[in-house]
C-alpha cells in the first residue's frame, strides 16, 4: 500500500467514524473502497483509539491545532460545548475575563460563531447541538428536583436525574399539581403515560411531561409493588390522564386512587387478568368462545 492511499484511507475512515459514510460509498475505485471499509471495520472496534492514533498526525482537523495561535477562540469553543471547567481553570485573570466575555457573546448565536471560526462540518455541528440539548434537559430535571425538594421533601428518590425523576408515591398528587402550575416549569401537557411490569413484584408508571410554553420535557417514574398497586390519580391535573390511567389499569392492573371512573377501557369489563403483566395467562374462554393458547401449532 502506498503512503498516499494509506493517507486517503485514514482520512475516509475518520470521516466515516464521524458518520459520513457517503464519502466511502461514493468512491469509484472498488479496491480502495473495500480497503477503506475493511479499515473502517477494524477501526469501529475501538473508534476512539483510532482517532487518537491518526487524527493528530494526518489530518489537520482538530480544534486545538487550528486555534493554537488564538487561545480565546479555542476556549470559547470548549465553553460552548459545555466544558466550563477549563475556562475556570485559566490562571491568567485577564485572559479568563476575555474568554468569558467572548463566550457570552458567542452564546447568543453559537452557530454563527462556529461558522465564523471555520467549523463547517455539518455532522459535527449537529452532534454538538444534540449535546447541548441534553444539557438543557439535564438542567431541567435538576431544576425540577431542586424545586420539588424544597416544597415537598423526599419527593424525588433517585440521585441521578439525568434521564428521569423517580417520584415518591405519597407526594405525587401534590407534586403533579405543582409541576403543572409552577410558572417556570409549566408542564401543561401529559404526553404519554406508560405502565411497566418490572418483574420482581414491581410495577411502574411513567409519565412523559411536556411544556408547550417552555418546550421542555421530563419523565417521571413511580414504582409500586404488585401486592398493592395503587397510585394517586392525576386525572384532575391533566384531563388526558383519565384515559391513560384507565388504559394502564386495563393493561397492568395498577389502580389509580381518586380516579372518577376506574373501569377497563379497551378490554371488556368481564375480562380476567392484566394482559401486559409478564406473568399473564390468557383465560380459556370468553362467553363460550374458546381462545386458543399462545404458541400452539405455529412458531
Amino acid at each position, binding site marked *: 500500500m502506498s503512503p498516499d492511499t494509506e493517507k486517503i484511507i485514514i482520512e475516509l475512515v475518520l470521516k466515516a467514524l464521524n458518520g459520513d459514510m457517503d464519502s466511502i460509498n461514493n468512491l469509484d475505485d472498488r479496491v480502495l473502497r473495500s480497503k477503506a471499509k475493511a479499515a473502517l471495520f477494524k477501526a469501529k472496534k475501538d473508534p476512539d483509539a483510532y482517532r487518537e492514533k491518526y487524527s493528530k498526525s494526518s489530518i489537520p482537523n482538530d480544534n486545538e491545532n487550528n486555534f493554537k495561535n488564538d487561545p480565546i477562540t479555542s476556549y470559547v469553543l470548549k465553553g460552548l460545548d459545555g466544558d466550563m471547567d477549563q475556562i475556570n481553570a485559566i490562571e491568567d485573570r485577564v485572559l479568563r475575563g476575555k474568554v468569558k466575555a467572548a463566550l457570552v457573546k458567542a452564546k447568543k448565536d453559537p452557530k454563527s460563531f462556529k461558522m465564523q471560526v471555520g467549523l463547517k462540518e455539518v455532522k459535527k455541528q449537529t452532534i454538538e447541538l444534540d449535546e447541548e440539548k441534553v444539557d438543557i434537559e439535564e438542567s431541567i430535571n435538576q431544576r425540577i428536583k431542586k424545586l420539588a425538594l424544597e416544597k415537598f421533601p423526599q419527593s424525588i428518590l433517585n440521585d441521578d436525574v439525568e434521564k428521569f425523576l423517580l417520584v415518591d408515591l405519597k407526594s405525587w398528587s401534590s407534586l403533579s399539581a405543582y409541576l403543572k402550575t409552577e410558572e417556570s416549569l409549566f408542564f401543561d401537557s401529559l404526553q404519554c403515560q406508560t405502565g411497566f411490569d418490572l418483574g420482581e413484584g414491581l410495577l411502574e408508571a411513567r409519565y412523559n411531561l411536556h411544556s408547550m410554553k417552555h418546550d421542555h420535557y421530563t419523565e417521571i417514574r413511580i414504582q409500586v409493588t404488585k401486592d398493592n398497586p395503587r397510585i394517586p390519580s392525576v386525572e384532575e391535573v391533566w384531563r388526558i390522564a383519565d384515559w391513560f390511567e384507565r388504559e394502564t389499569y386495563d393493561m397492568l392492573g395498577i389502580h389509580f386512587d381518586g380516579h372518577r371512573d376506574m373501569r377497563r377501557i379497551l378490554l371488556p369489563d368481564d*375480562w380476567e387478568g392484566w394482559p401486559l403483566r409478564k406473568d399473564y395467562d390468557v383465560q380459556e374462554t370468553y362467553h363460550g368462545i374458546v381462545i386458543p393458547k*399462545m404458541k400452539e401449532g405455529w412458531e
Partner: protein
Amino acid sequence: MGLLENKFNDNIIVEKLDKLLSWSRSTSPWFFQFGTACCAIEMMAAAASRHDLMRIGMIPRSSPRQADVMIVAGTVTMKMALRVKKLYEQMADPKYVVAMGSCATSGGPYWQHGYHVLKGVDIVIPVDVYVPGCPPRPEALIEGLLKLQEQILEERPLTRKMA
C-alpha cells in the same frame, strides 16, 4: 327462511321461477357496511370510484335488515364477536357472509399473541367466502364477491336442489 322456500316440487314452472329468484339474488347482493379495521378501507376503496362495486350490483346499506351480504372487513375482537353475531342474526334471509382479510378468516397476524382477537369470524357466524390477504386488494374482494354470486346463482331456493 322465507315463506316460499322448500315448499315446491320440481316442475318446469317452479324450475324457471327458481332460476329467476336465484338470478335476482345473485344480481343484487346489497352489502352491509361493516368495516372493523384496515380491510374496511379497502372495502371502501372497492366501493369507490375506481373499482366500483356497483358494477356488479352491490349497493351499500347501513342497516343490517336490508342487506344481503355481510362483508366482515377486518379484525373481529372478543368484545366485538358477540355484536357481530347479533348483527348477523338481524339480517334477513337469505344472507351471506364474506370474511375479508386474514384477520377475519383466521386471526391473521394477531393469531399468536392476540389474546383479545377472535381467531376467525367463522367461530361465531357461518362464512360463505373467504378472501385472503392482509389486506386483500379491492380486486381480490371483487373476485371473492363474484365467487359468492356464482354460488348464489347455483342455488335453487324453491326446490333446494344444490347444483
